[in-house]
């Protein structure tokens, strides 16, 4: 693959382009420049022979056509001289090179400025208002404790044999989890829940979005847990605030509906259902149902909307002791993920089967279209067909004659049976 050309080459690239001494044209590469020179400047007008240099052309004209070359064809004024031997980029006097570079540089900046003016974008390498480039992904600043907690949760998850998909392990960037979440946290703060501990500030309806794996660790930080609850409670208790609250939370509700319910019931478990989200990797595949895939009735109810199934939430609810919860969840998760895997592999198989069938059909069609075999019997040679004709048929009687004729009867009779 060739490298994609930059839309706006930078100055260095422009300066590196080979250019023609005679006409100041620049080219993509040296070979083309040389071709250009042979075609435009070093071509003999009499016989269309192309020479490599002006000197060569001069000698050629002299010897072959008995003429003298006066000037280089198609050259800019002042560059027509035959005295300088130019071949490609070789032989160009330094001052001419400097001059050329200067022109190119000037032109480059001129263009850039014009472009900046036209588009209103900052020039390449500059940022308006002197601010540095705003990186789109904020830095993840994790304290030692956070890292340790994450490690612990990871280990825990490993021990449980849970999925270790990247989604579970990556530092779930604070405030970065889902588009709706930051908004939520903002609203929380706006509503003035002072109980939010500083550590939790950035992490929005935090546990909710956090993957399952982190759960235990968070529970370990017991103090951290109360506040969110507190944060929730007021919101629920404010009927007048109800409508705005709901409006603000609609996103969250959609996504974490199950968890929200939990919150109402138990307080803590908001974190419990997200695992379902976290450990169901196949989601995207479900949402974007590929064409040609068979229907998945079983799963359809569960997957497309991200709500946990009643079954799951019930499992969560029924588990009174906290310690049991993970196992309960995990069980259902395992079951689900197993069934999901199965479904996916089924669907995949079906899809690939369809694809390959299509491909085969297409190939066949193509073949059929383009060629017509005059002899098309793949498994039998023409000679064999011919030999079957009555005219050529070889009958056992004849073979017996052979046996009589030739003193190799033993060998032959042993084979007559065929």
């Amino acid at each position, binding site marked *: 693959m060739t490298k994609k050309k930059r839309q706006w080459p930078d100055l260095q690239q422009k300066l590196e382009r080979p250019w023609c001494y005679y006409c100041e044209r620049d080219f993509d590469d040296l070979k083309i420049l040389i071709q250009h020179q042979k075609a435009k400047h070093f071509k003999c007008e009499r016989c269309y022979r192309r020479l490599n240099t002006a000197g060569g052309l001069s000698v050629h004209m002299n010897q072959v056509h008995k003429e003298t070359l006066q000037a280089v064809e198609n050259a800019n004024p002042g560059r027509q001289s035959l005295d300088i031997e130019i071949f490609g980029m070789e032989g160009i006097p330094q001052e001419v090179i400097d001059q050329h570079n200067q022109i190119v540089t000037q032109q480059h900046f001129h263009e850039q400025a014009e472009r900046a003016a036209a588009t209103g974008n900052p020039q390449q390498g500059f940022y308006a208002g002197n601010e540095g480039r705003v990186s789109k992904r904020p830095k993840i600043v994790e304290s030692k404790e956070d890292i340790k907690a994450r490690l612990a949760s990871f280990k825990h998850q490993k021990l449980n044999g849970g999925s270790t998909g990247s989604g579970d392990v990556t530092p779930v960037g604070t405030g970065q989890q889902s588009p709706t979440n930051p908004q939520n946290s903002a609203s929380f703060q706006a509503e003035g829940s002072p109980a939010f501990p500083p550590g939790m500030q950035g992490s929005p309806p935090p546990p909710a979005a956090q993957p399952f794996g982190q759960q235990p660790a968070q529970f370990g930080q017991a103090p951290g847990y109360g506040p969110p609850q507190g944060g929730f409670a007021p919101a629920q208790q404010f009927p007048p605030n109800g409508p705005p609250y709901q409006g603000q939370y609609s996103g969250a509700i959609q996504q974490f509906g199950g968890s929200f319910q939990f919150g109402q019931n138990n307080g803590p478990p908001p974190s419990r259902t997200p695992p379902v989200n976290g450990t169901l990797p196949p989601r995207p595949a479900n949402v974007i149902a590929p064409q040609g895939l068979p229907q998945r009735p079983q799963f359809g109810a569960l997957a497309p909307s991200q709500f946990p199934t009643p079954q799951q939430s019930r499992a969560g609810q029924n588990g009174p002791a906290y310690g049991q919860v993970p196992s309960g969840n995990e069980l259902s998760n395992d079951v689900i993920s197993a069934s999901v895997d199965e479904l996916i592999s089924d669907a995949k198989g079906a899809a690939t089967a369809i694809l390959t069938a299509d491909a085969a059909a297409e190939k066949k069609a193509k073949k059929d279209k383009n060629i017509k075999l005059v002899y098309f019997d793949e498994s039998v040679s023409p000679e064999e067909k011919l030999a079957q004709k009555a005219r050529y048929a*070889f009958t056992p009687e*004849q073979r017996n004659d052979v046996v009589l004729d030739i003193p190799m009867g033993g060998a032959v009779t042993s084979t007559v049976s065929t």
Partner: protein
Amino acid sequence: MAGLFGGGAAATATSSTVGDTSKDVDVPSSQMPGDSISDLAFSPQNDFLSVASWDKKVYIYEVNNNGAQGKWAFEMKAPVLGCAWSKDGTRIAGASADHTAVMVDLRNAPQSGSASLQTQQVAQHNDTIKCVRWFQHGGNDFVVTGSWDKTVKFWDLRSDKPAGTLDCAERIYTMDVKNDLLVIGTAERHIHMVDLKDPGKIYKTITSPLKWQTRVVSCFTDATGFAVGSIEGRCAIQYVEDKDTPLNFSFKCHRQQDPSARDVAKVYSVNAISFHPIHGTFSTAGSDGTFHFWDKDAKHRLKGYPEVGGSITATGFSKDGNIFAYAVSYDWSKGYSYNTPQQPIKLKLHPILGDECKPRPGSKKR
């Protein structure tokens, strides 16, 4: 016919790439076989040409400046599908649908005339013997026969028992020997290679590089590899040793544009491939009734020739490569209904003039 392969290029450069068949010499019809020609072979030592025919006979012609003169013939019990000369040119073997192969020693032959020759059976199979070749092992001459009974057998000419038997994957359709290389092409696209220094076992088995039925295999002049022709107008160049595999390639040939549908190519079978004994270039000939000379190293077609009036079923170069013989007969490629008496049966001798078969000196490898 120009433009068959090279497209426009061939059409414009008619003089250099299209050959002339007008000087080709016909074998007079009075001396011709009475039925389709299945195989032909030049003697490696003398100016003899043997021709095997479906009329159950093998004809031997003497080739001189005036053309070919019928010299001898011998008859078998069923159509003869193959013939071959021993290395010293003294004996000739014929392979027949009567499940046998016979040998004729020309040293005992009457000096002239069409007198029948004394045959001696050398091989016996359980089905039609499709091809026969000679080779030398330990200084002795052997005959190798390939049959539709899926075996290849070696015969030492003295015993009625084979000196060796190779069980092949399928019915043997084609076979060729050069020096110590024996290549066997079978049905279902198997190709066996045998090192004749160790004829007891198959040296290597491959599936044909071509996607369709193998029609013919032919060893290079230097025996480093072989060419394969298939029913789908395609020819593959295949080297024996793995180190040479980068040199393998295949190319299309013997195809025609269907006049009724422009995007449909009529694809003919490649019936015969012969290597030039000196230059190492080779010929292909097909059901479309054309033959072409190629240079495998330059991947170049040297010459193409206009249609000769019927399918070409067999080809061969004379011992010094000065004559290219080709047989025009019906090869059954179009089925039963085309097998009419109007189908020409011809045996033609094409003089190789000038550079027709020489690799072009400046032609670079592409």
